[in-house]
């Protein structure tokens, strides 16, 4: 009754092609942005920032990246953790080599470095596909993590083999290091998320996105209608790795502060981001956010309910968490293969007609 598009007339091509064609959606979007930028930073504290908001924002970027590759271009990748590690280590090397340059530029450059590495490991995708490719990307995962553990140059010969981010500021506010406040870190992550999501949305509905989707739906047919598979697949790998690299850089520099390749960017990270994309919805920008939010909030909720309310031991809760996540993945694939995004679409359809059934 409230959510409807009747009377919402489009009078120009521009308004017809906008991201949120329905007025209520548009208002919701701007309201969310306003709350995220002007309300949350003032009420946020360390616990909420570290447990929910920052992981959500950072994983959302990674999920966007993987969704571009897997959801839009149909190339399954299990190397997300390795690419995040590339972003993190590139950011670390840049931060320590050029201390006078702004960290924002370092993070973007780290994304570019990851994009190059991603294209390199994306080359086999020209010959192989499906889970053959998925296994091939495992090579990236294990090789890169090994490389960062074994070559001292990457961690500046530090004794522990860890990389830790030195203090850097943006407009005079500390973003990394011990003195950084939760609100500033949150705002930096949020800024990246909003811009990257906007870019992703527009890339995927433009010529690039259509090429990727053509390749995903049927690569031979796409080739026949004039899509160059080499360009399409490699651009997907590049853009996807760029996103994942930025999320890796943020994850290390802003969120963790100190990291070690095997621990922080192991194979479990690859699976986690893949699950976010599946549960959220393959081929949907909103889905990337929904999936990231879901899998960031779920462990926190389980921990609060299991450990704090019921007083169960931590290891038991951890096991239950594995079971719940595994069961949810299977349930989603059986009941709703298109994920939370599809549930949202169905809900919207229902809302438009409500209270009348037809």
């Amino acid at each position, binding site marked *: 009754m409230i959510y409807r598009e009747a009377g919402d007339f489009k009078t120009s091509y521009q308004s017809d092609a906008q991201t949120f064609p329905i007025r209520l959606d548009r208002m919701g979007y701007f309201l969310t942005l306003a709350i995220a930028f002007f309300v949350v930073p003032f009420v946020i504290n360390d616990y909420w920032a570290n447990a929910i908001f920052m992981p959500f924002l950072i994983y959302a970027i990674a999920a966007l990246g993987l969704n571009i590759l897997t959801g839009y271009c149909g190339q399954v990748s299990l190397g997300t953790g390795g690419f995040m590690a590339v972003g993190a280590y590139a950011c670390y090397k840049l931060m320590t080599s050029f201390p006078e340059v702004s960290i924002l530029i370092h993070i973007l450059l780290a994304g570019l470095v990851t994009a190059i590495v991603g294209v390199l490991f994306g080359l086999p995708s020209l010959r192989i596909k*499906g889970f053959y490719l998925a296994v091939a990307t495992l090579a990236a995962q294990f090789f890169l993590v090994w490389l960062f553990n074994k070559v001292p140059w990457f961690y500046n010969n530090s004794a522990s083999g860890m990389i830790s981010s030195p203090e850097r500021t943006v407009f005079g506010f500390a973003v990394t290091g011990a003195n950084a406040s939760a609100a500033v870190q949150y705002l930096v992550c949020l800024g990246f998320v909003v811009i990257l999501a906007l870019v992703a949305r527009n890339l995927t509905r433009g010529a690039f996105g259509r090429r990727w989707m053509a390749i995903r739906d049927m690569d031979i047919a796409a080739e026949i209608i004039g899509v160059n598979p080499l360009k399409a697949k490699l651009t997907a790998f590049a853009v996807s790795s760029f996103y994942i690299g930025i999320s890796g850089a943020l994850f290390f520099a802003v969120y963790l502060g100190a990291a070690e390749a095997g621990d922080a960017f192991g194979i479990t990270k690859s699976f986690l981001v893949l699950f976010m994309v599946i549960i959220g919805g393959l081929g949907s920008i909103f889905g990337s956010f929904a999936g990231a939010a879901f899998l960031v909030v779920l462990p926190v909720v389980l921990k609060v309910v299991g450990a704090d309310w019921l007083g169960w031991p931590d290891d038991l809760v951890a096991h239950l968490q594995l079971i719940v996540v595994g069961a949810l993945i299977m349930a989603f694939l059986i009941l709703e293969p298109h994920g939370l995004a599809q549930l949202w679409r169905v809900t919207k359809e229902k809302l438009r007609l409500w209270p009348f059934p037809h």
Partner: protein
Amino acid sequence: MPEQLLFAMEVTLNGLMAGVLYALVALGFVLIYKASGIFNYAQGVMALFAALTLVGIMEGQVPFAHLINVIFGTEIHHFGWEVPALLAILLTVVVMIIFAWLVNHFVMRHLINQEPIILFMATIGLAYFLEGVGDLMWGSDIKRLEVGLPQGINEWIDETTFQALGYGFFIDNLDIVAAVIAILLVIGLVIFSQYTTQGRALRAVADDHQAALSVGISLNFIWVLVWSIAGFVALVAGMMWGAKSGVQFSLSLIALKALPVLLIGGFTSIPGAIIGGLIIGVGEKLFEFSIGPMIGGATENWFAYVLALIFLVIRPQGLFGDKIIERV
């Protein structure tokens, strides 16, 4: 013969033995893939789960003891009896058959006609689920598996080679047992699939689901059968790995090692799984032995994958796999 060469030979032999263990896991993958087109990522976790169950039954552990204790405030751990190894193995087989039925009934049956990649992701979910259940049921501490398999250096080979070549080869008894069991298992599987009614039905399903259905073969039954056999193979693999390095979480990671084995051998070929396993086993041991020290060691983590990657680019269907034919 020079010392170095003999040493390399010993490394090769040990690599062959490690390869047999990889092949055992890969075998389970191939069986399920052939019969249902499902790429079962959970095979490694199934091996872990089977080994955990075996140890739990042998030691008379109470399943879900931890959970029960927490909910009801009780203090139970063990039933207080010990089950002989053979009986425990039989009971574990029964558990794996029940598991196969559950998987088929609640998951795979509902995913018929989905794309292969969706099925693959479903088995990743299954792997997480099963890992959680295994930990919850039997506890997540590292367990020792004692089913009476011989262990330690094989004295006879050591003596004989020392007398013949002046250098004693170190080969673990357990590896030899594993090799023998793997060979028996493959022979058994080949006989089963070639000479029994059920085996023929299984091959028919593998060739063409619809044609098999139309001549009256029950798909559901065959899939439960296949998952049961894969569960049995997982149990054997879990026993071998468990006896070698203890029953612990890292066991499930050998599943990942089995993937490059499959890529090299081909997804649809049982001999391919064996030969792929041997190539990976020997390859990674020799690489670590010859190149490893120069570039920092621990190359076993990634060598298999990179080898598979290079292999894929040259021959996408693997050594023995069916040729990939694409039709529009």
